[in-house]
């Protein structure tokens, strides 16, 4: 059975592109364009990996999704690939929820990712699981 990936991004074109890229490599994908939709889908069906954009509704919504995943016993072990197009040097302040320190996502990459690069990272994450 094909491995299933959830793509979380508020940019419809990004979802379109990566659905095609991952589909061509044999993965099954679903998508969500808000944090709420993402968590709803993650809790409703089983995914092997989540690709989460850092900036969805806010500058750091992606982290909130990641926290919710790590807080959920059933989802905790799912690998997360976090993507961002936030330029590194513009001083974006990321506010971590109170009482929680930096938490590791499994991989972090800056957009845009070449198709081969994305597929490669996805493969690595699914293998190490």
């Amino acid at each position, binding site marked *: 059975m094909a491995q299933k990936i959830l793509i979380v991004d508020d940019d419809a074109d*990004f979802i379109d592109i990566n659905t095609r890229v991952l589909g061509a490599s044999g993965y099954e994908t679903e998508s969500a364009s808000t944090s709420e939709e993402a968590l709803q889908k993650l809790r409703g069906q089983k995914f092997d990996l989540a690709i989460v954009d850092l900036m969805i509704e806010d500058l750091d919504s992606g982290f909130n999704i990641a926290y919710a995943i790590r807080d959920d016993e059933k989802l905790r072990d799912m690998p997360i690939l976090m993507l961002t197009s936030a330029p590194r040097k513009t001083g974006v302040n990321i506010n971590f929820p109170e009482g929680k320190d930096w938490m590791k996502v499994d991989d972090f990459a800056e957009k845009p990712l070449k*198709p081969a690069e994305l597929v490669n990272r996805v493969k690595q994450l699914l293998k190490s699981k």
Partner: protein
Amino acid sequence: MNQSGHILVIDDEEVIRSGCQQILEADGYHVDLADNGKSGLELIRKNDYDLVLTDIMMPEMDGMQVLDELQKMDSRTVSIVITGYASIESAIDAGRKGAFDYIAKPFDPDELSTRVERGLKQAEHLQQVERLRKERDENLLEISNERARTLTIINSMHEGVIATNRQKQVVLMNPAAIKMLRLKRQKIIGQTVQDILTMPDLTKTINEILETVKSSLKTLQKEFDTPDGRVLQASITPIQDENQACIGTVTVLFDITREKQVEQMKSDFVSHVSHELKAPLNAIQGYLDLILEGIAGNDPEKERDIVQKSRNRAKALSDLINDLLDLSRVEQRNISKEMEPVQLQEVLTQVIDFYRSKADEKSITLKTSLPEDTPPVRGNKQDLDRLFANLVSNAVKYTPENGNVDIRLDSDPEHVNVRIKDSGIGFTPETKNKIFDEFYRAENAVEQKISGTGLGLSIAKKIAEDHQGYIEVESQVNKGSTFYVIFPAYK
């Protein structure tokens, strides 16, 4: 012998007068003569004598009266009385009235010369004392003026100034510093820094400088957060004595809260813009990769779809850049823009004509009411074009097929009002608060994939406010929105 000295001899006896004159002129003095007290005083008032020799017993006005008058004149003229009745009493009496010495008649030339010489020395001495007193008074005045001037300058400075001594006590704090540090009306001078300042970091830094060994003394510049969330920049300079030991500090405070806020706003704006610019570029690159890597599977239909989507993003990127340029143009408020009376019916007619074809494509009914007799508003035509282009294009863009857009202009003696009403998708009351924010886009607009930069309304709002006008909006989801723009009428 030629000595300086201007002497007046007052005596009613001719012999004495001429005798004195001979002796004193021989000594080199300049001598004037008077034969009674009255004419003597007249000369004293006219000339500046170093010494006056006066007889006591004289008709018209006696010598005692001359002494009295001399006293009153606050003169530094030294007086010597000549008396025919050498008695202790008259000498004491004359002494009380300020006479420096007395000579008893008859006297010999040497005695006169000696006494006059002594008297002139006294006169010189008195003059010197007076000169020194004057100099001292002037210096004291100068010093106190200087102090007052320096204090006035320090007190009227916009920057806060705090001076401390080696014992960490405040010796000076100007009103600006008291205000910046939000100090209450309390005793400040003489208190320690620690007791007064509510900013432990600043206290610590000042104390550290006071304790620093002399070789490493230098001005320290640092930013400090105040308890109420402002930012102060402090420049702390050690004051050194002649042995380079630190004997105190001067701290100059600048309130840089506003600068910090502007810096933060600028940085937020830049990161937001960079993100907004990168998103369409990322999408375009992603689509191009799909074609280049053959992921589209060489299907012309799929490829065409991908190219079309890339094209849309490129167009959105170009729109965004145009809006950013507009935003920066509108924000250049300080650069004087040409402001002139503008007829809004003309502006609106042009804008509506431009968007009419788009409305027709969607079969939207465009109704207008633009009375010719509307008074003008004072404004910049290019900006007003942009404002109404943004509002009219929004109305057409967010109104579904077969809807209505109604544009009305009306006026009262004080205002010119524009109402742009559509039967579009509208927005929620929560959205209403954010709709004019830069880059904000209503959720339902994004869901329905209606493209936009999120800058149009913030540009419109800025332009309206630049024209002393304002924008208001009413909206209901799926019923439509109405924008009102109100300007003062130009008279």
